[in-house]
């Protein structure tokens, strides 16, 4: 049949659906009447008496009403009409039982909302590919250390890779840098990425305004150009549409703005706010200074494996040519997505999604329980309907329609809640926790999935009640007053549901308890510094202003003394990184007198450049020897203070004082390492936790400290210990600094407390979220237990009355009821424990100093859940004690 015929047929069906039903029926009745009359006439003609003929025709005709219905059904809209009447009926019931409806919708909305919120994060971070064309062709490239870890790249290695490879369509180096913007208001330190010209080609992203870099801009002299993020273009430059070509001053040099990146893209959320060309100067041309990161786009048709093989060959070739710097160093090529989404975040998100899914399931079980309890009330109604000829499938469909309606309501409410949850979590989210590429929002995918989950949950929670509710023993249900043993099957089903709820919430509770225990250990660990009243700030000192190391060290000394004279300041020190923010530099070292090791094979440590007053300022205790002091200047003996881990790891059973550690010099103003300097150990300090982006706060890392006089560099920060809340001194410290140099940018002013809080923020976030979910789960399970126990008490009032009348003591009855209920809880605990044993193992990598099978945690979680469950049975069980046999039995 062709389309027009189909369409006109559909039109006729529609006319039947919407046409006047009474006229249709009237006409049909008239048609039938004629038919019957003519039939009677025919039979009379055959010789039958009139009344006999009437009867025969009537018999033959059958039920006229049924026939009318059959004709009506022929129009093909029966399903819709049934659906409409089911929906009308469901709506009526939903409106008539506002209590049940609001509880059901609220339960669903909470579960669905929490799921939607977490799912919006999972969707943005884990499911959406990177927002670039052919994202699977983008890879991250780095040096591969002998132990398999990835390391930043030295300039000459990068240039060799760039020249020799045939597997990358584009390869771009990235250097992280900070520049000082002057010329408009207060000097401002800005984070920038210095990138190869091909950077935006690797990503496949163009400028929104102007252009991105051209190939020639990678050369010194042509590199004074800058591409802005959309955010800073709007915030700092007023969103000026004619900005292209404007000159700005960065680190006292003129730069031309050539482009603005797209709005609301990852460039608005990433660390850097500007992109500058990366031009290598002769000073950069070294092989032993590792400072570059790289990304690349694979040539079309080249697989990751082929690229790895090719780069392995290239890396081996370089290592053979330059063994002193490159022996054992390979090339790491990995999917970019694996670098963007770190395994810890990936795992945290999946754990949270599973947890929230479990909460949803528990809510679903509760709703099923509630519906079952209602099903008992409705047994009579269902029995009458089926006695009148309703088929079972039809009844199930009717009951499910109600649940679908509840599911839709719950889904809509859940969307609203989920949207609020999501925005709340985004506000609360520590910065840098999500990759900048992740754009968390309620997109259509999340919307659709949320509604589907809502409706499915509605159906799921109605399925068991509908199946058991439509299988009533007709005769029994219709008999007035049939009850007592009624609903045995639903009761068993309710028990199963509650056992499942207890099991699921136990899994969640143990998971949450483990994270809480781990977080407490992490948050209370000894950081090795006294964080009260200490302020840290960055003081970028660009090479363009300080070309000479003596000028710089004199300047830094002057700054320190100026700030020290600010009233309220107790102590102050220069450092290249504030505590718990990682290192500015790492170093490979050799202890003098031990076996010689070629450079790449040497062990590594943190290399911290500080002012002599650093340990006093941050409160790190000296364990042995002396501290650094003002005498440790450029032309004096190079000395170092090492931390406890360094002493314990590399000077086992020896006194480190007086030993000399060989570390290559950081050449001032050059991306280069000079010859080995023998740093003489003069003291040992207690470990200061390193933290930062690379290390977790809990890790103990060997560190050596030297003075900035003996190893000057351009990355400097200031730590200030105050006698009061240090944030109050903020302004006067800045004024003191600007008295020395009015172009000195002061950036990232934070207290050590804030830094510490941030460094445990991801752990805190996942802990709090999981704890909330576990709390909801336990609460829901308690409600479930409460419901089942009150139901069974209500059912057994009669039995209790007889027991009491026969002399049972109320306390005994209480024990009877609670004992039965707690058996159910224990079964749930046992099942949940088994599941948790397997499932909490996935948490292992997220735990600090806590084993997934930590006994205390398990016992506490189990006891807590059992106590809540006991309370949930006790309240309704008391009712069994209060049964008055006279009242209960008089009802007979």
């Amino acid at each position: 049949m062709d389309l027009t015929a189909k369409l006109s047929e559909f039109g006729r069906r529609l006319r039947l659906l919407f046409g006047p039903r009474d006229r249709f029926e009237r006409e049909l009745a008239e048609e039938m009447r004629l038919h019957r009359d003519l039939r009677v006439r025919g039979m009379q003609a055959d010789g039958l008496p009139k009344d006999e003929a009437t009867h025969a025709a009537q018999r033959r005709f059958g039920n006229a009403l049924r026939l009318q219905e059959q004709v009506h059904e022929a129009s093909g809209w029966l399903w819709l009409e049934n659906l409409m009447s089911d929906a009308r009926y469901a709506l009526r019931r939903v409106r008539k039982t506002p209590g049940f409806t609001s509880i059901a919708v609220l339960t669903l909305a909470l579960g669905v909302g929490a799921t939607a919120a977490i799912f919006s994060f999972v969707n943005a971070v884990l499911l959406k590919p990177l927002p670039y064309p052919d994202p699977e062709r983008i890879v991250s490239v780095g040096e591969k250390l002998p132990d398999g870890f990835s390391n930043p790249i030295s300039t000459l290695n990068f240039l060799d890779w760039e020249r020799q490879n045939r597997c990358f369509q584009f390869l771009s180096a990235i250097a992280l840098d900070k520049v000082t913007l002057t010329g408009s208001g207060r000097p401002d330190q800005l984070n920038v990425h210095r990138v190869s010209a091909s950077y935006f080609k690797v990503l496949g992203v163009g400028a929104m305004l102007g252009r991105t870099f051209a190939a020639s801009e990678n050369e010194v002299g042509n590199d004074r150009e800058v591409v802005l993020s959309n955010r800073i273009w709007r915030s700092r430059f007023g969103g000026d549409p004619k900005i292209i070509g404007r000159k700005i001053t960065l680190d006292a040099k003129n730069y031309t703005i050539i482009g603005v990146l797209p709005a609301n893209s990852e460039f608005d959320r990433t660390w850097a706010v500007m992109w500058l060309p990366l031009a290598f100067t002769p000073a950069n041309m070294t092989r032993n200074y590792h400072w570059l990161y790289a990304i690349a786009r694979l040539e079309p048709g080249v697989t990751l494996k082929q690229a790895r093989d090719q780069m392995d060959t290239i890396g081996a070739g370089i290592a053979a040519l330059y063994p002193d710097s490159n022996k054992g160093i390979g090339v790491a090529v990995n999917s970019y997505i694996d670098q963007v989404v770190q395994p810890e975040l990936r795992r945290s998100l999946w754990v949270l999604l599973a947890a929230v899914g479990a909460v949803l399931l528990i809510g679903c079980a509760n709703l099923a329980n509630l519906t079952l309890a209602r099903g008992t009330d409705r047994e009579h109604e269902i029995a009458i309907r089926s006695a009148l000829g309703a088929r079972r499938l039809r009844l199930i469909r009717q009951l499910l329609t109600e649940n679908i309606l509840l599911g839709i309501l719950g889904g809509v409410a859940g969307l609203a809640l989920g949207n609020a949850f999501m925005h709340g979590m985004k506000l609360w989210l520590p910065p840098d926790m999500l990759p900048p590429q992740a754009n968390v929002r309620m997109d259509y995918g999340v919307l659709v999935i949320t509604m589907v989950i809502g409706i499915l949950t509605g159906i799921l929670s109605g399925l068991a009640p509908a199946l058991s509710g439509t299988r009533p023993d007709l005769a029994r249900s219709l008999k007035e007053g049939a009850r007592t043993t009624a609903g045995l099957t639903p009761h068993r089903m309710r028990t199963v549901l509650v056992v499942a709820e207890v099991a699921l919430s136990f899994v969640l509770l143990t998971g949450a308890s483990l994270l809480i225990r781990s977080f407490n250990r992490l948050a209370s660990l000894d950081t090795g510094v006294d964080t009260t009243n200490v302020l840290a700030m960055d003081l970028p000192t660009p090479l363009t202003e300080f070309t000479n190391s003596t000028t710089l060290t004199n300047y830094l000394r002057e700054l320190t003394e100026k700030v020290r004279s600010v009233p309220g300041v107790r102590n102050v020190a220069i450092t290249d990184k504030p505590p718990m923010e990682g290192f500015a530099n790492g170093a490979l070292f050799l202890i003098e007198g031990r076996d010689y090791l070629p450079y790449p094979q040497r062990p590594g440590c943190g290399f911290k450049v500080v002012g002599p007053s650093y340990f006093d300022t941050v409160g790190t205790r000296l364990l042995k020897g002396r501290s650094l002091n003002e005498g440790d200047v450029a032309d004096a003996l190079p000395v170092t203070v090492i931390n406890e881990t360094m002493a314990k790891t590399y000077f086992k059973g020896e006194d480190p004082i007086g030993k000399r550690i060989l570390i290559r010099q950081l050449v001032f103003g050059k991306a280069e390492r000079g010859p080995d300097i023998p740093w003489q150990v003069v003291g040992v300090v207690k470990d200061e936790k390193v933290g930062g982006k690379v290390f977790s706060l809990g890790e103990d890392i060997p560190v050596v400290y030297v003075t900035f006089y003996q190893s000057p560099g351009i990355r400097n920060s200031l730590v200030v210990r105050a006698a009061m809340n240090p944030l109050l001194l903020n302004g006067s410290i800045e004024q003191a600094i600007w008295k020395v140099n009015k172009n000195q940018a002061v950036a990232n002013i934070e207290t050590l407390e804030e830094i510490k809080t941030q460094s445990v923020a991801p752990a805190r976030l996942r802990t709090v979220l999981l704890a909330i979910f576990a709390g909801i789960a336990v609460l829901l399970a308690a409600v479930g237990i409460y419901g089942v126990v009150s139901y069974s008490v209500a059912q057994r009032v009669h039995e209790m009355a007889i027991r009491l009348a026969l002399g049972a003591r109320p306390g005994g009855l209480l024990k009877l009821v609670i004992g039965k209920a707690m058996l159910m809880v224990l079964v749930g605990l046992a099942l949940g424990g088994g599941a948790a044993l397997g499932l909490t193992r996935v948490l292992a990598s997220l735990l600090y100093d806590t084993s997934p099978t930590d006994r205390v945690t398990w016992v506490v979680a189990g006891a807590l859940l059992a106590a809540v469950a006991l309370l949930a049975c006790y309240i309704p069980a008391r009712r069994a004690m209060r049964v008055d046999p006279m009242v209960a039995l008089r009802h007979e």
Partner: protein
Amino acid sequence: MPRPNASRDQIPPGTLYMLILRMLSRHGELHGFEIAKCIEQLSHDVLQVEEGSLYPALQRMLIKGWATAQWGVTAENRRARYYRLTAAGHKQLEIELSQFGRVMGAIQSVIQPA
């Protein structure tokens, strides 16, 4: 003479449309009872059209556009709904007839004594 019920044979499934279509194409315009009557007479009372299948079938034919219905007046001056074939109905009859013929021929050749 009233016929015993046992002689009422079921109309083979699927052929009711064909019979109705054929009646309408032969007589042009018929109401429901006339259709039933014609089928009964032409089959010498072997095929009995049940009201319970006739009217739903007519309704479906109206929907499919094989027939149209028009209220008219019978010889005895009673209102009756008269059915009439459309072009699509004529075409459908041909389809049904050829299909039926093919199936009948096939069945006959199967059951013919060798």
